[in-house]
């Protein structure tokens, strides 16, 4: 078998793509992937922004968690997936947890940086007009840190996409992971590559969408 069977011409990939994309198996795989991705990302956003903000504002929390977050942000989380499987079972819960772990740490770090370097004089201004702690947080700190938080979310989303694919690959009985496994085992390279293109395009599109939001924010935060 030659290289051409591993890298089939793009024309034949595109021809197969239309049948793959409309197949029931594919739609179901995408459904599962999107669901687990969305769930994992939502958790990562909530926990990431929450913990990041806490770490920026409360010294004790920062001292307890700081080192761990820094270790995990650079650690290869994939190595933990087998353990997750042992705890959460071979199914969607493990994928959700993988997405969460892939995404959450960079969001924590960026949120923390954004909030700790938020404009002090804006906080003082808020106090002078009688803002309470909650108002200072929601009306000033979060918005002031938005450029950093969005950068964290973009990096988190990119990692989350990796998480959903790696999680499913390692489990290999659900979602796109199952399809990747199926196609490569049976040497269905056209199908395999059309799936790759879809996943790559999805990741790029998401990242670009968030980058667009970032540019909008940078635009009005230009005078910081």
């Amino acid at each position, binding site marked *: 078998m030659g290289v051409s069977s591993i890298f089939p011409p793009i024309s034949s990939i595109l021809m197969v793509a239309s049948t793959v994309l409309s197949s029931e198996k594919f739609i179901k795989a995408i459904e599962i992937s999107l669901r687990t991705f969305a769930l994992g990302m939502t958790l990562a956003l909530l926990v990431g922004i929450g913990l990041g903000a806490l770490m920026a504002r409360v010294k004790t929390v920062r001292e307890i968690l700081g080192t761990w977050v820094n270790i995990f942000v650079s650690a290869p989380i994939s190595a933990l997936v087998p353990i997750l499987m042992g705890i959460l079972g071979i199914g969607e819960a493990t994928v959700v947890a993988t997405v969460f772990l892939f995404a959450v740490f960079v969001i924590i770090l960026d949120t923390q940086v954004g909030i700790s370097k938020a404009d002090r004089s*804006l906080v003082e201004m808020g106090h002078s007009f009688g803002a309470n702690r909650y108002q200072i947080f929601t009306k000033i700190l979060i918005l002031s840190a938005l450029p950093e938080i969005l950068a964290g979310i973009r990096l988190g989303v990119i990692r989350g996409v990796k998480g959903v694919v790696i999680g499913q690959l390692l489990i290999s009985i659900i979602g796109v992971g199952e399809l990747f496994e199926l196609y490569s085992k049976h040497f269905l390279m056209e199908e395999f590559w059309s799936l790759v293109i879809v996943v790559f395009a999805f990741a790029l599109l998401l990242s670009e969408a968030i980058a667009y939001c970032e540019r909008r924010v940078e635009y009005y935060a230009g005078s910081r």
Partner: protein
Amino acid sequence: MSADSIVKLKDIGKIYDTGVEALKDVNFEFPVGKLSTLLGPSGCGKTTLLKIIGGLIDATSGEVWVNGKPISGPGPDRAFVFQDFALMPWATILRNVAFGLELRGVPKDERLDIARKYIKEVGLEGFESNYPHQLSGGMRQRVGLARALTVDADIILMDEPFSSVDEQTRRKFQEDMLDLLQNRRKTVIFVTHRIEEAAYLSDLIVLLSARPGSVSQVIKPDIDHSGKCPDEIRRDKNYLDIIDNIWRELKVYLC
């Protein structure tokens, strides 16, 4: 507390965590409805004192009384104008001006109407939907002034409001500010290191000594703003004498 004073400082002292003693035994009563200036050499604790009056910094010792009651933090009776404007870059001019009212829970339509009124009064009509970075320094400080006026506080605290504004803009802004404040019976406490500015604007100049700052002298410029054009005042003998006096007083701390 005498009947016509609104802010009273009792033995105010401030020692920073670093051990620096910024203020010592500051006693003063600010008269109601007047523009009083805190003037002194740099590092004498002018801004610190203003922020203590605003409730933004706690004094190490002593008390601030406002309207006959000791304060324990910021309050609706005082509004602050900041040296660096402190405008939210993500919010429009309209929302920035209405922000004090937003924090107080005033309904949106009502607070935006009030904000529009003051934006017009400070001369920024047409800029409501712009963002702060699209405005010049002088215009941004007008936004800061409008924001302080919307909450209708009795006392307006201004921390070197014109220091980041260029000279030509500053003069025009000073006139406009005097006009705005003239009919409102606001008490203004104004921090500056510029002698001319203090002499030109103030009913009362409080000279602070060098660190640790305390009140060294009180001067009443008594300049008649009515009927005279600003440039005439700036050539007035009385005005020039006051500047000279203050300079002689302050020079002591420089050597």
